[in-house]
């Protein structure tokens, strides 16, 4: 697993975040499956997966001839325990609720 710098760097790219979201939706996907779900070349997906693997955010397992990619949420938890909880957790919890309420209200009013 990489350093926290590598984790932040990996998360700084929107394409890589969408790859993590794909794996969050459906874990244990092959390169071909991920390629089919994203508007990107095979080479592009490979390149981004490599950065995510080096940061420890994606871990792989061989299953027969296939290589499956799994989202490893542990580095994000470590960032949370190191940064978020210290500075913001009691507030962040309240703010997330507030955001949810506001968004639900807005939705109801058809905005």
């Amino acid at each position, binding site marked *: *697993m990489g350093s926290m710098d590598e984790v932040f760097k990996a998360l700084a790219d929107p394409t890589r975040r969408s790859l993590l979201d794909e794996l969050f939706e459906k*874990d*244990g996907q092959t390169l071909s499956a991920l390629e089919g779900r994203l508007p990107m070349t095979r080479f592009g997906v490979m390149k981004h997966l490599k950065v995510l693997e080096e940061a*420890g955010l994606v*871990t792989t*397992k061989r299953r027969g001839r296939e290589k499956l990619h*799994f989202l*490893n*949420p*542990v580095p*994000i*938890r*470590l960032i*949370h*325990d190191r940064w978020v*909880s*210290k500075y913001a*957790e*009691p507030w962040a919890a309240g703010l997330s609720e507030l955001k949810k309420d506001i968004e639900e209200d807005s939705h109801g009013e058809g905005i």
Partner: protein
Amino acid sequence: MEKVFEIYIKTTPERLWEAITDNAQRQKYNFGVGVSSDWAPGSGYEGVHPGAGISICEGENLEIDPPRRLVQSFTALWSDQVKSEGVSRVTWEIEPVGSSCRLTVTHDQLNEGANSELYGGWPMILSGLKTLLETGELLDTPGSLRYSEEGIS
């Protein structure tokens, strides 16, 4: 469904194995829940919360190979919803890397779309295990204390 959790911890495989299988140490990073077993091949284990006095989970030790590999069946017992998920499997693998260990926890044989309570706690548990082994201290973020003795009192 299968979930994989990986973490690097600066410790020896022996100390890591002990922290996973020792009841008192386990309670310190596992939402206050220990593990009780005689660790004989084919034995069972039980996760008990001493404060609440109830079994949180139970299962069998399917493979025991200290300090490298532990495979356990897992049945969650903390609510009717999680009980209805039935039996899944948890594999702990310890691999030395330089002066650290890579710990991989694979939680598989989960139902498709399984209740996320079954596997959602692993990142926090592993983060607490890392803090305990590397600093000797307890992770004291509000989330990690939620179900511990300190959090309940």
